């Protein structure tokens, strides 16, 4: 961001919004928005408590599980769809439906199928993240230079070699982009899962704080969640930039 010719440090827009938040809170316009400073005080008070660490742990397990399956299932499906016309025509309509479907509406069905525990929450998380990973991987594979494929074929690449040594790497910039968006969607998935399926983790904290009108607690947990999602997304963005040197010259 630039201001009157000066380059402002990254994320200085956050400072402006933070300031606005603080002022709104100090004016006591609504109980819904307590001052940001109060939120941070609450944040430091709850962050070490057993209730919080337990919630963080439960959420992390469900989130990492869900993201793991979204990635290890999504990437191969995307590669196969990009390579195989028949599979692509079979699956693409479904992927397109699910990528934009209101998945929250499916959660009750998942509960019936898979019970009220961690399993359903992980599946919900996977379902939120996987579709965009499939679509991006597919797009990445479809734009692979034909002659790279012919090159590996002409030197006798086995299908497995072609998959792991050419397709995956050639599509990596798009795959990472898909994973980054998928991970952000999975954050949404894990919280919705925890709210709807079984009241555990951050979902339980949100439920507890919101129903007791503990707004500064509510915002404190939301800020933690945002910070975690932001860190992961920045890390994936960093990986994406690391492969961008060849994204342009494939």
């Amino acid at each position: 961001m630039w201001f009157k010719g000066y380059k402002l440090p990254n994320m200085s827009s956050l400072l402006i919004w933070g300031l606005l938040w603080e002022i709104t809170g100090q004016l006591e316009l609504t109980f819904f928005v307590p001052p940001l400073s109060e939120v941070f005080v609450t944040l430091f008070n709850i962050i070490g408590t057993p209730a919080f660490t337990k919630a963080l742990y439960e959420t992390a397990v469900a989130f990492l599980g869900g993201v793991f399956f979204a990635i290890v299932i999504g990437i191969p499906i995307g590669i196969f769809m990009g390579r195989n016309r028949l599979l692509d025509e079979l699956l693409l309509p479904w992927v397109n439906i699910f990528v934009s479907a209101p998945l929250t509406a499916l959660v009750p069905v998942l509960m019936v199928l898979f019970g009220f525990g961690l399993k359903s929450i992980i599946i919900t998380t996977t379902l939120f993240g996987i579709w965009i990973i499939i679509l991006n991987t597919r797009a990445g594979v479809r734009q692979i230079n034909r002659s790279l494929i012919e090159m590996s074929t002409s030197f006798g690449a086995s299908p497995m070699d072609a998959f792991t040594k050419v397709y995956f790497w050639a599509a990596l910039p798009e795959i990472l982009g898909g994973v980054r968006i998928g991970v952000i969607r999975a954050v949404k998935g894990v919280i919705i899962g925890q709210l709807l399926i079984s009241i555990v983790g951050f979902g339980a904290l949100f439920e507890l704080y919101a129903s007791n009108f503990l707004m500064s607690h509510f915002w404190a947990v939301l800020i933690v969640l945002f910070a975690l999602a932001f860190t992961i997304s920045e890390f994936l963005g960093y990986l994406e930039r690391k492969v961008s040197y060849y994204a342009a010259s494939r």
Partner: protein
Amino acid sequence: MVMSQTESAFADAQSLEQDIAVSVQGVSKNYGAVEALKNMSLDFPRGQLTSLLGPSGCGKTTLLKIIAGLLKSDTGKIIVNGKPVTGPGPNRAFVFQDFALLPWASVMRNVAFGLELRGVAKSEREDKAAKYINDVGLAGFEGAYPHELSGGMRQRVGLARALSVDANVLLLDEPFSAVDEQTRRKFQEDLLALVANENKTFIFVTHSIEEAVYCSDQIALLLPRPSRVHEIIRPNINRAIGVESIRRAPEYLDIVDQIWASLRAYVE
């Protein structure tokens, strides 16, 4: 090289029952309604460089890919070293017009990639690759990435990769079309040295008449609609007279003119 009378007579007799490395027999290929190749037959003598010369769209790439086993022909067959081709094989290596390098891999890994796919152990394939990186004049660039290299250097990587798998037939699809004229001439010299030293059969696609006449032992002149071999020309250029003299030699210029006359009707 000076040959005695009997020796050269003997060589001529031998060339009559020449050792054929690659034989194209009655090959046709259609892309939907487009007739890319029609009943084409052509022999490629072992240890020589044969150019496929013709205007673009006449099926040169298609023929080369069929020989490589990358495309299936509709009719006819390809015989390489006496055996029919059913797919890609270790006796043929391809050099691509657009280089086809792995952009995420170093020069070393790219050159060794053919060997890597054939399951050669890392230290062994890197030794071999290092030799060919050196041979094509890229010593010192082993750790560089394709985007850091010029077009000419990238094609040297592609060439080194094809050489390192030690196939006895090299298929080159307009390998020099994306490099500048100076580099191109240097490449032609290097290619001639390879033909002389490596005892491999080179099948070389080009649309440059001068390049074909300058480099080839044999030129197959292809014409489109329907694509067929119009003429086989053996330039027999005496290369001993030196690069500059060749490009001014009457027999060189005559052959260039003769080919141009055959092609003119199709280009206009």
